[in-house]
């Protein structure tokens, strides 16, 4: 047999191996800004998207105890049954919808993984997912990783960045498969009313869509309750409810979240989870069991955030930066569009001139242009200093 002599292929450079659809996805605006900020010293940062609390001690202590007892193994793919039972009880009590710990709850590595599983479990190439902007930076890229098509709905400050049925009607098409919700919202702090949630449900049912709802900030709701779309009659069967311990319990580094959904969907997500992740870390799962034993941790932190939110909103409005008072999460999203600068220019100058870091609103979607995201999960003394510096800055801009 003769070996066919094919022409030598041109050699590929490392970059040439990268999948085309990945190249098309831009770097997160947060990362760009992070690179600038991290090269600076002595800044006050209102740009951090995680709690300033350390995880409550009794939870940390339980994690230490678990390690002490040799909890260093894999768990079942779904996660420890005791934790799934505790989650089932908590979600039932807090949101009014009951999930079966055996077949409807899946423990994941943060809501980040749960979100990826949910999208990959349902999206086929070309399927459209409607989501609302400004939003968490991962949504559109996650949809595109799954070869889906992200369809953004712009929310606006005149109605507190809420999402209404009319906005959704505008964007729905025959290819729409899912709606992705995040209330309370990162970065706007927006929440929904019971009526909003019911309207969106009616829309989803009418167009036969599935809803993915990321309620990671739910414990940090200050006014108006926290209606979940999963609890609306007829919605449980078409909802994937995502939640986790990062924000409400100040457990970001534990990397623990969960997805609740009907058994068929849960099994589909499980299929991906078991092959790519196996299970969430056991120490984190043990700590989370402890976290769900009391209800006071989240309550204490919520009160503390609420006071800081009030302070920051009041100070911003006083200095002439209009800021609606968001009802949830730990971000305010003030409007800085009247100063003749883009949000990126404003943020960079604020950093240069006053050493205060806020994230430009444009990092969270086009309609975030003209806004800044300021996180108040920051020590009150730092918030005070930051607002004094910002007041000085805008005074100069105005003069």
């Amino acid at each position, binding site marked *: 047999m003769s070996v066919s002599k094919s022409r030598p292929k041109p050699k590929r450079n490392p970059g040439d191996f990268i999948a085309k659809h990945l190249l098309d996805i831009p770097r997160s605006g947060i990362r760009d800004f992070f690179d600038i900020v991290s090269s600076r010293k002595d800044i006050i940062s209102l*740009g*951090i998207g*995680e709690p300033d609390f350390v995880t409550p001690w009794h939870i940390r202590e339980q994690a230490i105890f678990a390690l002490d007892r040799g909890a260093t193994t894999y768990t079942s793919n779904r996660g420890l049954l005791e934790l799934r039972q505790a989650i089932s009880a908590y979600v039932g009590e807090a949101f009014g919808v009951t999930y079966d710990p055996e077949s409807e709850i899946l423990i994941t590595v943060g809501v980040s993984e749960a979100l990826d599983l949910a999208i990959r479990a349902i999206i086929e190439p070309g399927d459209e997912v409607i989501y609302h902007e400004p939003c968490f*930076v991962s949504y559109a890229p996650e949809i595109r990783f799954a070869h889906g098509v992200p369809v953004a709905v712009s929310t606006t400050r005149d109605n507190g960045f809420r999402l209404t049925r009319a906005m959704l009607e505008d964007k729905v098409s025959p290819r729409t498969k899912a709606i992705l919700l995040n209330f309370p919202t990162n970065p706007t702090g927006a929440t929904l009313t019971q009526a909003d949630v019911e309207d969106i449900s009616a829309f989803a049912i009418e167009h036969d869509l599935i809803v993915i709802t990321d309620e990671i900030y739910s414990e940090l709701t200050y006014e108006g309750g926290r209606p979940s779309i999963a609890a609306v009659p007829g919605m449980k069967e078409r909802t994937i409810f995502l939640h986790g311990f990062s924000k409400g319990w100040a457990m970001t580094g534990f990397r623990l979240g969960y997805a609740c959904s009907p058994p068929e969907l849960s099994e589909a997500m499980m299929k991906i989870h078991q092959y790519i992740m196996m299970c969430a870390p056991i120490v984190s799962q043990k700590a989370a069991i402890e976290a769900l034993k009391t209800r006071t941790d989240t309550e204490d932190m919520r009160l503390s955030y609420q*006071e800081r939110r009030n302070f920051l909103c009041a100070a911003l409005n006083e200095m002439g930066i209009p800021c609606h008072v968001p009802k949830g999460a730990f971000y305010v999203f003030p409007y800085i569009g009247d100063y003749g600068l883009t949000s990126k220019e404003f943020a960079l100058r604020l950093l240069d001139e006053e050493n205060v870091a806020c994230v430009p609103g444009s990092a969270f979607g086009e309609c975030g242009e003209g806004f800044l995201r300021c996180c108040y999960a920051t020590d009150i003394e730092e918030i005070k200093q930051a607002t004094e510096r910002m007041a000085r800055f805008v005074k100069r801009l105005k003069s």
Partner: protein
Amino acid sequence: MDELLKLLKHNALETPKNLARMLNTTEEAVKAKIAGYEGAGIIRGYQAVLNTDLMDVELVRAVIEIKVTPEREGGFNRIAERVSKFPEVESVYLMSGTYDLMAVVAGRNLKDVAFFVSEKLATIQGIISTGTHFMLKTYKNNGVLMEAEKTDERLKVSP
């Protein structure tokens, strides 16, 4: 507990203006409420929380367990008040358990404190016995850790 009291307990130097911003109310309302608490005796004073271990002063503290014969009509109150009046005594509590009163006593050195207990406290009529425990180091006082636990290790900007 009222949020205003919690905030003041955390930082009594907080200005009424800032308190008003945090509580979503007016400066006047905050001032009036504080005056109300002061008038009612609920706010008994404002103090700095000191880490005396770092200060260049001679100071020792001891917890004194005191057993008392309760008096007809007066119970423990009369003796507790007598104990409280000494400036050396920083705090006094009525306790459940194996002794009745617990006092925290401060002095310049061990000898001073020991002398105060044996000469002044133990000799009060109605006090049956005392037990003295010297404090060696303060880790937490009034809800305040003497060594800050937390350094902020969060990334400067995150999603």
